[in-house]
């Protein structure tokens, strides 16, 4: 149980972690309506410059907050997200509002049922604030030919927030709210978390249901929290995790109490590191290498053992993931690519259409290699170690000028090392650990055994406590109008 904090000044409620806010709610020192009004006020003031929300459901949010308060007064506690505001990437269905997928193809697509993620948060007493900006179908962006403008990076007008859960990263970093849920197919949660200085978790494949979520690549897609702190992510995963009859890919693996392990420390844990993937690559910023070394030193000083390991070649993981991604994404959109090509954004079309050229034999080859790589990763790392520490991004956020108007650059994101664990399915968390010399966030990636998010959270919480700089926020955006 988290220590009960002192009551927080009204102007800084967004700095309360989910466990802290939850404790105050249960003490009667804070109401969910206050917390929700605070978040709505910050969205109204700052989001015109950030574009992180595509829809704010203010009235529904205040009704749910009032209901959460009534429940607590009646002694009904629905869990770690009770009374806590959150928002969802706009590929995740919420009954009665559009899931636009940031696409002209879906802009009026009001859905008639909740996704499992939304229904679990609703049942958990959490307070939905609305829908968050994404790339089109979680792949086509950053683009200016879509129904919504791309989200901005709160740390810099000149840099992108990464994607595709770009609204999630921007909103959390700017302190509009603490908890969002995104999707991650090759790094779409971990990337925006890394480049916006937030925590992003891709859970084990099968840990969180994708029922009611627009798929991008069915066997690579995973769904998880993007939040300000590790404790926030643990609380959110607690609510959304678990088997779901609506998604046959989910597994019947019990969901442990993630929030109970955060202060257990790392003594006795065995940690693998893999500098071979990034440290000698000239594309990696020296500050990132140094920060990862510092983090490994912190873990050793707290009683963990750290060994270097040699992983299967990164390029093979990357090729495997890209081929599967391309073939599956094309298959999902094939019909509309044939019938209405001009309805797609230019980036989306040019990223998805090449998958038409993947032969069945090549896709099967990629699936075979995927199995082999995953087995080798388990034998090399997870049969002997509790977690793997590696780079998440190799550089700070890309510039807007890196993205030509007419055609997308060849890589989906900026030198990320996230795709290997989308291929293998292991849980992987992007942890912010300070800033590069250019003032932009940097961090690392913590990878765990399949379905062992618990140990990933333990390690992340220990590093966050020592190196996390969670007190440092970007400058508040211009509250009057759009940024440049």
């Amino acid at each position: 149980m988290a220590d009960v904090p002192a009551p927080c000044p009204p102007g800084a409620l967004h700095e309360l972690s989910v466990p802290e806010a939850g404790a105050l709610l249960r003490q009667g020192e804070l109401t969910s309506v206050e917390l929700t009004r605070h978040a709505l006020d910050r969205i109204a003031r700052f989001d015109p410059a950030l574009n992180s929300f595509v829809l704010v459901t203010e009235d529904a949010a205040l009704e749910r907050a009032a209901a959460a308060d009534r429940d607590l007064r009646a002694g009904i506690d629905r869990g770690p997200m009770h009374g806590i505001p959150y928002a969802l990437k706009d590929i995740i269905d919420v009954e009665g509002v559009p899931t636009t997928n940031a696409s002209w193809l879906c802009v009026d697509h009001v859905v008639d049922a909740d996704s499992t993620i939304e229904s679990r948060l609703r049942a958990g007493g959490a307070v939905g604030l609305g829908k968050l900006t994404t790339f089109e179908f979680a792949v086509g962006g950053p683009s200016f030919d879509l129904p919504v403008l791309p989200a901005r990076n709160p740390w810099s007008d000149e840099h992108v927030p990464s994607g595709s859960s770009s609204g999630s990263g921007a909103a959390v970093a700017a302190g509009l709210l603490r908890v969002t849920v995104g999707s991650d197919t090759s790094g779409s949660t971990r990337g925006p978390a890394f480049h916006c200085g937030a925590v992003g978790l891709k859970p084990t494949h099968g840990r969180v249901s994708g029922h009611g979520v627009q798929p991008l690549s069915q066997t690579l897609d995973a769904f998880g929290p993007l939040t300000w702190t590790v404790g926030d992510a643990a609380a959110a995963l607690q609510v959304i995790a678990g088997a779901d009859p609506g998604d046959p890919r989910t597994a019947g693996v019990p969901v442990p109490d993630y929030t109970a392990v955060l202060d257990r420390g790392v003594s006795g844990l065995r940690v693998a590191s893999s500098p071979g993937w990034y440290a000698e690559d000239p594309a990696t910023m020296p500050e990132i290498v140094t920060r990862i070394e510092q983090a490994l030193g912190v873990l050793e000083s707290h009683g963990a053992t750290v060994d270097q390991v040699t992983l299967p070649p990164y390029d093979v993981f990357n090729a495997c993931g890209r081929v599967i991604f391309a073939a599956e994404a094309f298959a999902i959109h094939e019909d509309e690519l044939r019938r209405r090509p001009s309805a797609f954004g230019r980036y989306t079309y040019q990223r998805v259409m090449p998958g038409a050229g993947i032969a069945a034999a090549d896709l099967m080859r990629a699936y075979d290699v995927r199995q082999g790589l995953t087995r080798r990763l388990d034998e090399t790392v997870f049969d002997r170690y509790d977690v793997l520490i590696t780079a998440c991004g190799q550089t700070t956020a890309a510039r807007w000028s890196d993205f030509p108007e007419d055609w997308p650059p060849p890589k989906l994101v900026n030198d990320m090392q996230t795709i290997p664990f989308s291929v293998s399915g292991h849980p992987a968390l992007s942890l912010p650990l300070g800033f590069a010399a250019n003032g932009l966030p940097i961090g690392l990636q913590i990878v765990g055994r399949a379905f062992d998010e618990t140990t990933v959270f333990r390690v992340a919480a220990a590093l966050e406590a020592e190196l996390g700089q969670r007190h440092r926020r970007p400058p508040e955006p211009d509250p009057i109008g759009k940024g440049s």
Partner: protein
Amino acid sequence: MSDGTIAAIEAEFDVFTGRLDIEVPADTKDGVLRGYEGLRGMTALLRGVTDDGVALDG
């Protein structure tokens, strides 16, 4: 398999899209072919490794 020139890659890709009855708009063709060229390199790489990623000629 084509000889890897842009014209050959385009001809190869056109076979796939022709089978699928898909016409790629002219103003996106260059970007699509660039993406397809990258994927060809990746499929070739996967054909050149064992299932667990070891190069066959290594």
